[in-house]
């Protein structure tokens, strides 16, 4: 609470509630789960495999790139949301087979096409009460990819 302690404690990077992110160690990415028995992959992370019911899945970093599965252009902002209308709500399919609900960044909503290649952007959404950087993610068109 004192000025001293806030100087001593550097801001941490923490994932926003409801998003599972691998932060800080090497390349940042979504964090999912992989079943050591059958290899199926899940996002968000879970404990029990939906394919083979194995209990205790391995945490894995997910691919940073994927393809647009589907989308819509939201024309009205929701109360409390950080994004301003119009914005693109999207489902992104990663090579692991999982589909990630997210929003698109750096894109003209009218030019969005199903199938376009996308990459993740992980960025600060806000600060929390302890002064930590609360991190969230979006996806944006892959540079050099089909857009």
């Amino acid at each position, binding site marked *: 609470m004192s000025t001293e302690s806030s100087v001593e404690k550097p801001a941490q990077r923490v994932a926003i509630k409801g998003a599972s992110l691998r932060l800080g160690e090497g390349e940042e990415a979504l964090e999912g789960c992989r079943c050591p028995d059958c290899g199926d992959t899940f996002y968000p992370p879970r404990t029990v495999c939906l394919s083979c019911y194995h209990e205790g899945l391995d945490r894995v970093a997910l691919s940073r790139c994927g393809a647009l599965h589907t989308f819509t252009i939201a024309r009205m902002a929701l109360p409390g949301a950080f994004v301003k209308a119009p914005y693109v709500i999207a489902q992104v399919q990663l090579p692991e087979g999982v589909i990630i609900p997210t929003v698109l960044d750096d894109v003209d909503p009218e030019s969005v096409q199903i199938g376009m290649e996308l990459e993740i952007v992980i960025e600060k959404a*806000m600060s929390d009460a302890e002064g930590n950087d609360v991190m969230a993610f979006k996806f944006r068109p892959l540079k050099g990819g089909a857009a």
Partner: protein
Amino acid sequence: MSSRVVVLGVGLHPFGRHPDKSIGEMARVAGLAALKDAGVEYKDVQAGFCAHVNQGVGAGLRTFGQLGMTGIPVTNIELACASSSRAAMLSADAIANGLYDVVMVIGVEKMERGLLSGVGGKEFGYNDAMGINLMPAIYAMWAQRHMHLHGTKHEHFAKVSEKAHRNGALNPNAQYQKAISLEDVLTSRMIADPITLYECSPTTDGASAVILASEAVARKHTNAPVFLDTWVGGTPEYHRGEAEQAEGPNAVLAQKAYEAGGLGPEDVDVCQIHDAFSPGEVFLAEELGFCPEGEGGPFIWEGNTEIGGRIPINTDGGLLSRGHPIGATGGAMITELALQLRGDAGQRQVPDAKTALLHNAGIGGVNVMVLKR
């Protein structure tokens, strides 16, 4: 002990905006109408189910208590927009197995203004921050995928709403009793492409009541019973590598219902489906087997689901025009189909309707029913 199940009585409190009415008041109106329709007294009711979503603790008491306090077990059932059809299914299970002869379902909801938002916890998180919890957006994304895969057009979806409002104009219990043009639908405010405001079900208050009875008891009150013949419910199934299903495995459940009921989609004379947003009817025309996969758009565009068409859908206006007080909706669907099968649907009547299909979906599950006379 096994018995066929009869939809003996149905009743509605008119759907609309009723900010000054309590859920008890609306439930009483619907409940008394259903009792009168059934020709039974409240003290004949042996068990009750109160279907609602956001009406708080004690809703069963506050609704059934308006009709009487006879000591019967009353259970609150929640399955989001499919709450009262699920309550009817549990009632039907009990009657079919001889547990009760007369069971009453009251579905009721007073809704908060604003567009439906999806599943959420109480804490602000990623979906809130990103504006993802926008219910129309979920249907919009399914719609975009359908457009991408099958060439479906916005006009196809919009036609659903135009037709719904045309039907709603014939229904004195509907929230909107006014036809609107395709142009009106297409040019109303865009919410989430391709869904416009008039392609979203409205915010609605209302109540429905359904009295189900064993065939033996029902035959004392009617010579032309409408049977709740078959009912199945389910949740989304996970299949590795396949995209997520909607609120549940619609096609799988419809197939189960057809098999259990000994019929096929070609035998359905009238149908109620879950058009919370206009694309719903396009998807379901396919999933329920009325047209091949991908052809739902043109199928509806050509008028097949209108009254007088091959398979009239949502003759009462559907969620879009009759309104969608989420806890009461399933009961309203049953009400309309019972009226249709009795030949009591007035200006909305589908001639000689003998077999009806019902599809009601909510966050948490899907219900499919077959009704027959």
